[in-house]
């Protein structure tokens, strides 16, 4: 058991994956000597060499496009996109090529590629450094989309994503990079595509992923003092989405609130709400409610705390759910 930040837990996960399989290579901007702007790849070039951990030209489409070719050659590239807002130059390669290659080739061409993206806000950054692009990717057939919320999951999920033969968009909540937890590298992880009830409760289910899991856990702790019992589900995998775990929880609590930093309109919350209404129409006591970023561009950082869901906004909507 060792105490690690999420950044270090990812680093250790990458190291373990590279030790396990010589075809795993890391590529991205400033990931070599610098170790990445968040230091997630710190020391890996030194230990594994420039052939397996290499800095790329500053061109995101190039990163993903060449990763596709490397995968066709038998490699398992792990691409780092420096910030969420910089993934869009690679959007065409991800959506039109990476996602479709397996189906296009009738399964002959595997795309074991992981695209790591630090995502979400809360770090006082300038424009394009606080985006939550998950819905774009979850909407695209052929991609898998993962979001870790804590160091333990980060450590194992990155290894599982690398072992997957499907392309994975791997979202890392950047404001949680420095949170710590005790990680046991020998532990047996949950299946990658399984959601997890991270706090049990009876009154309302909070459904979250990535950075908002901690916010929801904090909200649940605060609610307990007011005599309210909130259950928290960490989705972990956004596509495919483990609806069974969500349904089982909401079947018990009969109320659901989805929480994410991304805007509400056509977001993950909308999908989860639709599925819950199809599955549990007669069992729910309240409509599925959402706590999300507003449907506006991410604001300048001096006001980002007002844009992002926080403990108070979550509890405010929980109250609303309980009023039905």
């Amino acid at each position, binding site marked *: 058991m060792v105490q690690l930040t999420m950044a270090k837990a990812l680093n250790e996960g990458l190291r373990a994956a590279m030790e396990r399989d010589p075809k795993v290579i890391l590529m991205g901007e400033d990931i070599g000597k610098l170790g990445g702007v968040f230091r997630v790849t710190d020391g890996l070039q030194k230990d594994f060499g420039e052939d397996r951990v290499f800095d790329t*030209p500053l061109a995101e489409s190039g990163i993903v496009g060449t990763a596709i070719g490397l995968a066709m050659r038998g490699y398992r590239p792990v691409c780092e996109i420096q910030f969420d807002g910089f993934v869009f130059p690679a959007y065409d*390669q991800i959506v039109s090529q990476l996602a479709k290659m397996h189906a296009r080739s009738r399964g002959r061409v595997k795309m074991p590629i992981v695209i790591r993206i630090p995502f979400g806000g809360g770090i006082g950054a300038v424009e394009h450094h606080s985006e939550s692009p998950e819905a774009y990717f979850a909407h695209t057939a052929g991609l898998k989309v993962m979001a870790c919320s804590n160091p333990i999951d980060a450590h194992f999920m990155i290894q599982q994503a690398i072992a997957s033969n499907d392309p994975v968009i791997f979202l890392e909540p950047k404001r949680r990079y420095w949170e710590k937890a005790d990680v046991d590298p020998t532990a047996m992880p949950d299946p990658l595509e399984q959601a997890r009830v991270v706090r049990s409760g009876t009154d309302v289910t909070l459904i979250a992923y990535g950075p908002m899991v901690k916010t929801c856990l904090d909200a649940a702790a605060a609610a307990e003092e007011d005599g309210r019992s909130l259950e928290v589900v960490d989705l972990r995998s956004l596509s495919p989405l483990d609806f069974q775990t969500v349904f089982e929880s909401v079947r018990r609590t009969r109320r659901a609130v989805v929480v994410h930093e991304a805007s509400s309109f056509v977001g993950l919350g909308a999908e989860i709400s639709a599925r819950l209404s199809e599955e549990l129409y007669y069992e729910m006591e309240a409509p599925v409610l959402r706590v999300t970023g507003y449907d506006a561009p991410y604001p300048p950082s001096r006001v980002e705390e007002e844009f992002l869901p926080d403990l108070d906004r979550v509890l405010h909507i929980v109250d609303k759910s309980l009023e039905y």
Partner: protein
Amino acid sequence: MTVAQPAADPHLIQLLTPEGERLHHPDYDVDLTDEEYRSLYRDLVLVRRIDVEATALQRQGELGIWAALLGQEAAQVGSGRALRPQDFAFPTYREHGVAWCRDVDPLKLLGLFRGATNGDWDPEETRFALYTIVIGSQTLHATGYAMGVTKDGAVGSGDVLKDEAVIAYFGDGASSQGDVNEAFVWASVYNAPIVFFCQNNQWGISTPAATQSRIPLYKRAEGFGFPGVRVDGNDVLATYAVTRQALDSARTGQGPTLIEAFTYRMGAHTTSDDPTRYRLSSELEAWKLKDPLERMKAFLFKQQVADASFIEAVEGEADALASRIRKGCLEMPDPSPMVMFDQVYEEMTPLLRTQAEEFATYHAGFAQGGAH
């Protein structure tokens, strides 16, 4: 052999004039056997015949669309035959001639344009990637693949029969795409064993090459740090010689080359296009005089490498091939709708499994004449 008039463009590498005269070039040459010369001609004829038959099948409603290669046979056969067996090619959607050289059954190409498949050949087995429809995307895939070749140590051993190289096809229109320019940067800085083969057929649908570039395309390579050459794309011998040399340069570890094959799209962009709206018939007439098949035939006759009976035999073979692909196209079954759900992922996700089951039940209801 005679030393004929130099080509009008002194930078255009040509080994065969439109009249079928052999030229010599200080840097590029071919010395093929009579059988190999005849074989190149046969390729040109068969590839054109596939193309003509496919166009006809589209006109008769059997294909949704067809992207004709008419006029570009020499560029494709010359470069395709320059590939060594271990090389890997990344095509656009018009490389029917290269597909032929990689032993991809023409019916697989027709299946794509009929809408029965997305290609369905085995890229690994044929060493020919699936057609890429988005313009320029495949140049990055090719570059990445070539980087992998280097990582595998499959370059620079000195054994041209073993060392590998990669070729990326694209056109004059694609030269404006960011992906193509990124591919140039990456191939250059990683010294990747790749040949960028640009068929400048003068037109991107209705947009002339002049709208894509103010300088000849082959000159762009210099700015990226690797050599660029312009070859007569209607000259199968020159295209073969230039591509073979560029591939061998790449496989020996000398990095990328850009080849601009100067050619002409004799037909429409696709069967949905109408070129009479944007280009002059006089231009087409001028290019007809540079036809890649006619000049090779003239060469064969002049060299007494072939006679009328050989030409006749090739025509007979082309007729049989056309007949086979026509029959195969007409008999091609539509895929089961259930293939929609297959192979989206390595294992079907619960969501897809549910949808596939619901669809199967719904679909079966029609077969049973059930009410909907």
